[in-house]
Each structure stands twice: as C-alpha cells, then as structure tokens.
C-alpha cells in the first residue's frame, strides 16, 4: 500500500491550488456567517468573504492565536451547534483553563483519514498490528492515532501510556509491527527491554510514529538502532486537529503537510509577512475543510521551514522540516504542553504566593523532569514544618491538576533565584535537543 488516498495525496500542485482556493472561499464564507468572533475580526480587518478568490488571497486574512481560544472559552469559536459536535478534546491553555476543540462527525472522519495517511506514510497497511502508546483521553494523541488505525483496517492495541513492562510483553506476545508514542518513551522502552533482557530488535517491529515533543537527530538514531525500526516523525496539534497534520514518508525528507485540509504558511513572527521556501519562520495553519472549529491563519508558534518541491515518494504535498523551536516560551514535557504562565497562574491562586519561581526542565535518563522552585515569601512562611509541607503539597497538587504533569516542587529561600534586570529568568531547559 503506497498511499491511503492516492487521488488527494498525489494530485498536481495546480489542481491542489484550485482545490485549496475553492475550499478557502467556502470556509471564509462559513466562519463569517456562523462565528461571531470571525465576523467581528474580518470586519475589523476590512476583509469581506468576497475578497477571497484564490488561495493567494489568504494573506488578507487576520491571524488567530491561542489567546483567542482563552477569550472564547469554552465553545465560543465553534462554528456548529453543540448538537452537531460529537467530540470535544482539550489541551493546555496559557492560564488555568484548557484550550477546547470540537469535532463534528465529518471532522472525526477527516481526522481518521489523516491519521491513516500518516500510518501509510510510514509503511503500515491493513495487516499491521499497531500498538498505540500515546495517552488516551482529552489529549488528542491516543484517540487520534487509534481512529487512524481503525480507518486503515489494521489491528489497534489501545495500550495508552505507561506501564513499560506490560507494553513490552504485549509487543512481544501480540506481534506488534508498528508503535505510536513519544520519542522519549520509545527510548525508555528500549532501556526497560535491556534491563529485562529481551531483544527488541528480534521482534516483528517495523516502524514507529513519534511526535508530541521535540526530538533530536541523535535521539532518532538511538531509537532506530535500539528498537531496530524506522522512525517516522509526525506532527500535529489539537487546535489544528491533533496528530495527522503532517508526517514523514519513508524518504525522510521532511513531513508532508496534508495540505488539502490544512493550508500551511511560514511567516515572520514579528512582521507577520510570509517567508519564502527554505526560510525559517512561524508555522501558520488555515482549516480548509473542518466543520466544528475552522480556524483562519492559526499561529502555531512552532518554528520551521517548508519545501514545496517534489518528493521521491510521489506525494505532492509540501514538506515541513522538524520543528526547531518556539516563538513563545511553551515547554513540552513528557508530551504535554506547558506554559510558564499556567504555573504563574497556579502560584497566584495560592494565597500569599508572590510568584518568584523558576522552572527547571531536565532529561534524566530518557524522561523529562520538571522542577519548580518557588521562593518562600514571609507571608507564605510558617514556623511549623507541617504547614510548610502542606504548602508544598498544595502547590504540587494544584500544578498537577492544571498542567496534568507531575512537577517536583522545591521551596527555596527568598531572593535565591537569580534576577536579571529585576525580572527572574523563568525557565532553564537543560535538555539537549540538537
């Protein structure tokens, strides 16, 4: 099986442009009619749907940002009534509230198609046995790939995250051929396998689909060697759809963006002007077909570059390079997006906590460690150990329930976090991503 949907995946660039233009016209007309937020935004920008004729007119449209999600929490950006929404997922927001995304029945089908395309890009077919070790739940990773496996007609093993020994046992006993997880989890599995004395390379494992966190070339090499597989880089974000936005093919020349549904642009993050092919900038997506939550020019804050040239695999979709950084301070920890502002929000909620804090991210072994150092102010301080322990537990608990990531909370002496020009340096990322 070379392509899931050859007609779409290999259509000529001219034809694709026509399809994109037509779909863009339709989506702009639709959001202008159905989403008050976009009507206001387009009116403010002085753009009318009739101004949009070809895909090149996209630059006339205003941007959408993560803050727009926050301001319209929870369902303000939905373009369909809730009765037509069959699924809601959520990802981290910049404060205490998550970013909520909704899908119609057609969106779920489209999503399944895109994830199935991803699987085929890496060589899976309907005889494959796919172990999905992304977390299932509000996070889009697990259920996204799961529906892709189902769409493909392969066998889905819904492992969800965690429990490495069990993952390995299932992998061996069920004859897993493809695995989906974060790259760091793949390395952890390799480590546990070595400890348990079983050889991953002797299993029937062929390829793995790795995403949801940044990874380096050296990590890819280590994964391919230690698991004896081909590593496929996949990309997605819940605001766009979840996994299934773009995927590497076996030619490993970047990630094919499923452009018939998600139109990519690279812009200069400061000026907002488009960047030419091969130049790094911020990745921006416009939904061409999504019904429940179509977004115009959504700024992903991910930095990458794009190449519209042909690929050996035969797909005509443009390729983006692996994401090399962020234009904001978002961190990805064990596959979960974390904004320092979320942490600040939690600390502010705790009475008396003047938020002097520092976030330290490290990778001990293969998994990320998140430590938050909080300066103890006089109002937070008590001379009773149990109260101080209580404070620390409360911070840890509130951080976990907001971020869905466990953090080690260290209480430190006041003024012990170095200030630069009066402002504390918030994040120290010790992970090596190159």
């Amino acid at each position, binding site marked *: 099986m070379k392509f899931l949907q050859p007609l779409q995946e290999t259509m000529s660039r001219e034809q694709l442009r026509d399809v994109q233009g037509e779909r863009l016209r339709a989506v702009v007309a639709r959001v202008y009619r159905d989403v008050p937020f976009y009507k206001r935004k387009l009116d403010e920008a002085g753009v009318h749907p009739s101004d949009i004729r070809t895909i090149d007119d996209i630059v006339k449209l205003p941007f959408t940002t993560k803050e727009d999600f926050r301001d319209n929490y929870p369902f303000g950006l939905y373009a369909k009534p809730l009765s037509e929404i069959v699924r809601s997922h959520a990802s981290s927001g910049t404060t205490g509230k998550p970013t909520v995304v909704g899908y119609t029945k057609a969106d779920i089908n489209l999503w399944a198609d895109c994830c199935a395309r991803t699987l085929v890009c890496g060589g899976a077919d309907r005889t494959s046995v796919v172990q999905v070790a992304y977390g299932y739940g509000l996070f889009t990773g697990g259920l996204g790939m799961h529906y892709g496996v189902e769409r493909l007609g392969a066998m889905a093993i819904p492992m969800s995250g965690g429990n490495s020994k069990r993952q390995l046992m299932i992998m061996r006993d069920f004859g897993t051929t493809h695995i989906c997880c974060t790259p760091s989890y793949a390395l952890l599995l390799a480590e546990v396998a070595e400890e348990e004395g079983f050889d991953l390379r002797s299993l029937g494992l062929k390829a793995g689909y790795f995403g949801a966190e940044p990874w380096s070339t050296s990590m890819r090499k280590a994964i391919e060697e230690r698991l004896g597989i081909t590593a496929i880089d996949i990309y997605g974000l819940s605001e766009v759809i979840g996994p299934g936005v773009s995927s590497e093919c076996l030619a490993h020349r970047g990630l094919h963006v499923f452009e018939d549904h998600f139109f990519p642009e690279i812009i200069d993050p400061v000026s907002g002007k488009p960047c030419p092919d091969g130049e790094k900038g911020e990745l921006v997506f416009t939904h061409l077909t999504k019904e429940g939550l179509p977004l115009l020019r959504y700024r992903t804050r991910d930095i990458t570059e794009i190449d519209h040239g042909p690929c050996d695999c035969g797909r005509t979709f443009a390729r983006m390079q692996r994401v090399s950084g962020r234009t904001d301070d978002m961190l990805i920890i064990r596959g979960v997006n974390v904004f320092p502002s979320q942490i600040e929000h939690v600390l502010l909620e705790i009475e008396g906590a003047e938020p002097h804090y520092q976030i330290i991210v490290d990778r001990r072994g293969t998994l990320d460690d998140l430590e938050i150092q909080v300066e*103890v*102010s*006089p109002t*937070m*301080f*008590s*001379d*009773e*150990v149990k109260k*101080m*322990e209580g404070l620390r537990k409360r911070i840890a608990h509130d951080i976990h329930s907001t971020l869905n990531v466990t953090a080690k909370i*260290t*209480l*430190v*002496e*006041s*003024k*012990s976090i170095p200030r630069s020009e009066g402002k504390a340096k918030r994040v120290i990322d010790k992970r090596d991503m190159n």
Partner: protein
Amino acid sequence: MKVQQISIFMENRAGRLAAVARLLGTTGINIRALSLADTSDFGILRLIVDKPEEAKKALKANSFTFNVTDVVAVQIPDEPGGLASVLEALQAQNVNVEYMYAFVEKCGGKAIVVFRFDDLDGAIGLLQGAGVRVLSRQEVLSL
C-alpha cells in the same frame, strides 16, 4: 511570660546553617536556644537569641525569610520523670503542643523546655496552676 522565637526558612543544603550562625555572630548576637526541624529539602531553624530586634534587622537585611512566634520556656527538674509530669498536666487539660525542644542549663543543672502551643495564654495559666515554673523573658535571655 512569653518569649520571642525567631524561625527562619532554610534550604536543606550545605552551608546554610553556618551562614545564619555567622551572620548572627558578626552582628554580636548570642543564641540562647535553637532547634532545627528539617525535611528532605528544607528546614526551619528556630532560635531564641539575646537581642531579638537586632537579629531581625540583620536577617531582613540579608533577605532571609523568617517570622517571630511567641513560645513558653519552662524549667523542669533535671531528673527522671521531670518532663513527663509537665506533659501529663498538659494532657489532662487537652492542651495541644505544636512542637517543643529542650536544652540543659549550663550551671544550674535544670532542664529548660521550650513549648509552642495553639493556645499560649491558656497553657501558661495551666502550667502555673500545676506548679510548673514558667521562665520570664528576662530569665531566658540571661541564661
């Protein structure tokens, strides 16, 4: 009857205790009693010093997080069962001890126990009623 105690927040790493001791030493402050309660990563140093006001000033100037709590110092016969009789008197009246620490006076041969209660005034009354000798502030500072 109440004695001022200074409690300092301290990270549990090498040199922090020495830093406080040196700071107080160079400022000419004498430590009368101390206790250290610690967890794996932080500790609370509780001190009774001869010049509390100056100690506070010095700590503040050096960005330490601290607070001041009132505690009670009680003299106990330095002999078997001395402490037990005091605690029994407290227990009989359901007085809750938040924490306590003890030291032995240099020459008098008496043990001094420092208590922190949730109801300080009630506890002082009770202790005195039970014939326990509660030290005045002046007595403590001049130990």
